[in-house]
């Protein structure tokens, strides 16, 4: 089959490819945020963490020549930003939503500042696994080039689901999120639990950022993330704080985000920008459908300020 002869099939294929490729940052950020929010705190700063992760991953990969070292650096950067968030939030009378906004601005600013010298050079990228080897069609092969991080993310979702239900750590996080008094009565420090949950959340969000700069789109520039972090935070809300639903929602988002470029590739150029905004419109639409002013959301951690 010759190149381009598959016609309109390009669109669903590109959406499928997008669901796999574009969804990875959504997946990591939403799983990270899921852990943080289950502990009773919301970190809106993951947008900044994502960008910082992307920048540090690219920088370390460029300097060391190893993209995996870059991924690790992104995770550590994210964990440090998470620790900063948790540290400030543990002061009395400090609002976690506001701190998140501040860290969103701080993280993006710092990443742009430190990332200035990184716009030019090319860093080693993460390898991909070719799942499309059986096909002759280049579009199919392109859609099925899957990054290892995506597979890790997919595996992480059921692991987290299981961990929240059965492990000691999962129960502690949920206790802190449902009733900080209960956690305190059991002799645990709520602040410490939340610190760890926010750091793990930041670690995952940082790794999500490393995917942006080291695989897709695969370079560092200042327009790399436009709201993926905040979309992922919203995604956690309508995934009902359930890691498995986070996975499905991320896939849907990746597909929606790939719709604009896919339609452009078959010649539908009008409305390009509107299709690019599809993930945000989708988020808003789903929030409008699933939220209700009458009751708090099912599955919402009771200590969470944002669902009041």
């Amino acid at each position, binding site marked *: 089959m010759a190149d381009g002869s598959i016609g309109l099939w390009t669109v669903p294929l590109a959406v499928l490819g997008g669901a796999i490729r574009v969804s990875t940052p959504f997946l990591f950020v939403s799983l990270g945020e899921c852990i943080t929010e289950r502990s009773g705190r919301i970190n*809106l700063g993951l947008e*900044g963490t994502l960008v910082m992760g992307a920048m540090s991953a690219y920088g370390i990969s460029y300097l060391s020549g190893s993209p995996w070292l870059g991924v690790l650096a992104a995770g550590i950067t994210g964990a440090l930003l998470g620790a*900063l968030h948790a540290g*400030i939030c543990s*002061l*009395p*009378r*400090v*609002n976690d*939503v*506001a*701190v998140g*906004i*501040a*860290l969103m*601005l*701080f*993280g*993006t*600013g*710092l990443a*742009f*500042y430190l990332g*200035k010298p990184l716009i030019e050079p090319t860093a080693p990228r993460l390898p991909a696994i070719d799942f499309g080897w059986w096909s002759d069609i280049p579009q199919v092969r392109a859609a099925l080039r899957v990054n290892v991080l995506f597979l890790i993310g997919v595996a992480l979702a059921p692991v987290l689901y299981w961990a929240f239900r059965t492990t000691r750590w999962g129960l502690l996080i949920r206790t802190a999120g449902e009733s900080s008094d209960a956690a305190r009565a059991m002799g645990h420090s709520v602040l410490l639990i939340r610190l760890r949950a926010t750091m793990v959340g930041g670690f995952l969000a940082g790794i999500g950022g490393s995917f942006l700069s080291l695989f897709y789109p695969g370079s560092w520039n200042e327009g790399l993330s*436009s*709201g993926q972090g*905040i*979309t992922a*935070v*919203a995604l956690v*809300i309508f995934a009902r704080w359930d890691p498995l639903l986070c996975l499905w929602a991320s896939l849907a988002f990746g597909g929606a985000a790939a719709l604009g470029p896919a339609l452009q590739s078959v010649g539908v150029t*009008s*409305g*390009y*920008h*509107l299709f*690019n*905004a599809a993930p*945000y*419109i989708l*988020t*808003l639409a789903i*929030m*409008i459908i699933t*939220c*209700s*002013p*009458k009751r708090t959301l099912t599955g919402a951690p009771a200590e969470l300020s*944002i*669902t009041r």
Partner: protein
Amino acid sequence: MTTETADSAAAVGTVAPAADPGFLQRHGSTIEYVLIPGAAVVGALAVFGVFVMLFGKNPLDLYFYMYQGAFGTWFSWQNTLTRAAPLILTALCTALPAQLGMVIIGGEGALLMGALSATSAALALQGLPPLVIQIAMVCAGVIGGGLWIMLSGALRQYRGVNETISSLLLVYIALAILNHLVEGAMRDPASLNKPSTREIGAANMIGTIPGTDVHWGLVFGLIAAIAAYILIYHTVFGFAARVAGGNIRAAKIVGLGVTKLILTICFLAGGAAGLAGMVEVAAVQGRTNANLAAGYGFTGILVAFLARQNPLAIIPVAILLGGISASGGLLQRRLGLPDASVLVLQGIIFVFVLASDALYGRIGFLKGKS
């Protein structure tokens, strides 16, 4: 510069007791509102100084050029005030809903929608007298921005959608709509490299305050901030809003129309940011294009928090932050710092200001008999 804030705060703290020993205790909370954010800004500047020191720059040079670029000359003052104008308006977009306990961070989106509406109005009315067009632009800008944030308020009230997240999502949607129209239906065929709408016409621009290079947008901002202050602190409506912000159940029990309060306040908040968009079109850009998304909406959030959501305090804080962004160019030229250094400093200030919330009511010498 910031040292001024700290100096004036220190002056209040040191001079006053001689005149009246009880002064500190009686005005403790007011002094706190100046002293604590001032100290937070000074702390943030110190941390930023250490930060640039790590890159081999002299922090004293940094402070000197920041002062020069922000307030050192008449030219820099005018630059600062020009940037402060939209900041006052976008800060109101966060500060007004904050009276109701809402955290709206979508000022940037309202600014873009205001700019788009104002431009549409001007282009539709071409040929009419400039004053008519300018008034129409103000109305269109306020309505465009106002409805945009009112949407967030309505979603919160009728559907329980969190307003922080919805308002931020609406920023990206507004940007997409703007790009869509600017590159499509409203595009000026003559704008090749930078897709833009047609120009609103030089005669319809609002111009500058006589004797300065500062445009009239600053006056719009001052009027809006003072009006917001009067509305919140000296009217029944504002009192009702603050009651609802303090305790929404109490407000419902005494029969306040909470829905009406939320929608009105959100409309006014968005209207202020929309006016900022109108000002940027009618005084600076002359047309609508992607340049308008310059981040005034996001800096406005910081201004509102630094001013502790007080509409009057927003004015000096907006001038301070306008000064910081005005000094960015000089820092780039003289010290070779990247343009993002202003963003880093803003982020550090924001973090310090929020962390300083923990200090209220804990400063020993301000307590005493209450």
